């Protein structure tokens, strides 16, 4: 369970404070949570807060679960180092043994289908290749919650399918927090929903209700 206690988060802008959430108290049950919201509503900020790398201005987020790093934007890699070296670094970071590290390297090599590029500096990668590496790497670690920011849209159609299958298999044993603009994906992967809208955070027991509400909001705002 993730508990938010009087969480307030805002950004300072020229026109005063822009609130993403204002004094929100919520209990999120253990489930696959889909995050909904328009561009710039604060979805990514919310994920980063749940992942513990961004902090509320006041209030607390409490959980005894482990969270992955937010996956998606290919951050956390060093351009000058090879893909393999980067994978090794993350393994070291998590205190993996040599044997485990070798297994993880092999797994990521197979999954990401980078071939020779695996031993080349990351700066030579295309963004799709980076995404593949990042996605493969995160699958190799075990968390209670995987935090995913639109990564399913990485790579070509065939890899997308493969990634989706792999993720489905992965979330049999863990939960996922997913940001996506594809309602189909959200419905497929998640049971519950969380919507960020105008400084409010609304939790939906059923993702379908969330999606309906979200479509409604989009319609009215579009006009």
């Amino acid at each position, binding site marked *: 369970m993730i508990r938010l206690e009087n969480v307030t988060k805002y950004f300072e802008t020229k026109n005063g404070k822009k609130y993403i959430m204002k004094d929100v108290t919520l209990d999120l049950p253990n489930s696959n949570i889909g995050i909904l919201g328009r561009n710039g509503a604060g979805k990514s900020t919310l994920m980063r807060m749940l992942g513990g*790398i961004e*902090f509320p201005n006041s209030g607390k987020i409490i959980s005894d679960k482990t969270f992955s790093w937010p996956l998606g934007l290919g951050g*956390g890699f060093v351009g000058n180092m090879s893909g393999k070296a980067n994978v090794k*670094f993350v393994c070291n970071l*998590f*205190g993996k043994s040599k044997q485990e590290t070798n297994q993880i390297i092999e797994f990521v090599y197979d999954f990401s289908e980078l071939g020779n590029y695996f031993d080349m500096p990351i700066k030579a990668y295309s963004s799709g290749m980076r995404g593949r590496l990042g996605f493969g790497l995160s699958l190799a670690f075990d968390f209670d919650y995987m935090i995913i920011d639109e990564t399913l849209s990485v790579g070509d159609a065939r890899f997308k399918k493969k990634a989706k299958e792999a993720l489905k298999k992965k979330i049999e044993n863990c939960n996922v927090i997913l940001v996506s603009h594809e309602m189909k994906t959200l419905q497929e992967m998640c049971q519950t929903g969380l919507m960020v809208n105008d400084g409010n955070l609304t939790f939906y027991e059923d993702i379908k209700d969330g999606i309906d509400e979200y479509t409604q909001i989009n319609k009215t705002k579009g006009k």
Partner: protein
Amino acid sequence: MVQIKKYTHNIFLDIILDKFERILLEKRSSLKIFLSVIRALFLRELEMRFSTGKSGLFWTFFEPFLQIFIFVAIRVAIANSHGTSANATNFDFAVFMASGFTAFNMFRHTLSSSAGAFIANQGLFVYKQVKPIDTLISRLLLEFFLTTIILAIFLSIGLLFEYENTIPQNILMVFVSYIWLLFFSFGIGLIVGVGNAFFMSVGKFISILSFGLMILSAVFFPLSSLPPAVQDILLYNPLVHFMEMVHGYWIDELDTSLVSYSYITAWTIIPMFIGIWLYNKLEKRIISL
């Protein structure tokens, strides 16, 4: 309801022991995380030195040689123009330079790499266990590691070519001086690192300052060679004390009579506290910069 392990027949004692065990376990695991993060970052910094072209690594080892060569050459030129022998002093100047420059370079490099530590490793803060200060500490350890290698190279060269006084007069105290200097660099580096995370110009200012400090820090001359009035002014610079300490304990003919240990203790502890206080206040902002 939390399950409490049964250690004794007394329930209150059990609760206390249980609490104690929990604290110990938690502490141990956070220490373990810290150590594996530091190890990973250290190896990564090391690998980056090796992988970013050979020039970076070449300069790391060649720079001190060049510095020593230049300053010994200047020394010889001055001695010749005065018509005296280059060895007018009783000690070997190359050894004097090597000991001073290695220590000073350690400070200088630590400071400049601390300045960039938070900015350059921004991308790594997506991993929750990486705290900004870990990146700074690992860079500090890398500089110390490289300094040790450079010292080992100098010592081997000194022994091979039979320079006089290659082996320090007081090995233990030379070691203490280096470690102390490292702690001093940590405090200053932390302040500079935090400052540089919010004001880019701090790093630039520091790189200019450290060049000036080289001239004013008694790196390539013994302080005792200057008139007492100048000595008094230079002794306000804490680095002078560190350099005098290294030189004094290394070279047989020199001593550490000008070093004020209480002065450098203050210069070590106060910046360290200010740095840690600033860092604690701003850590979250640095992570999500």
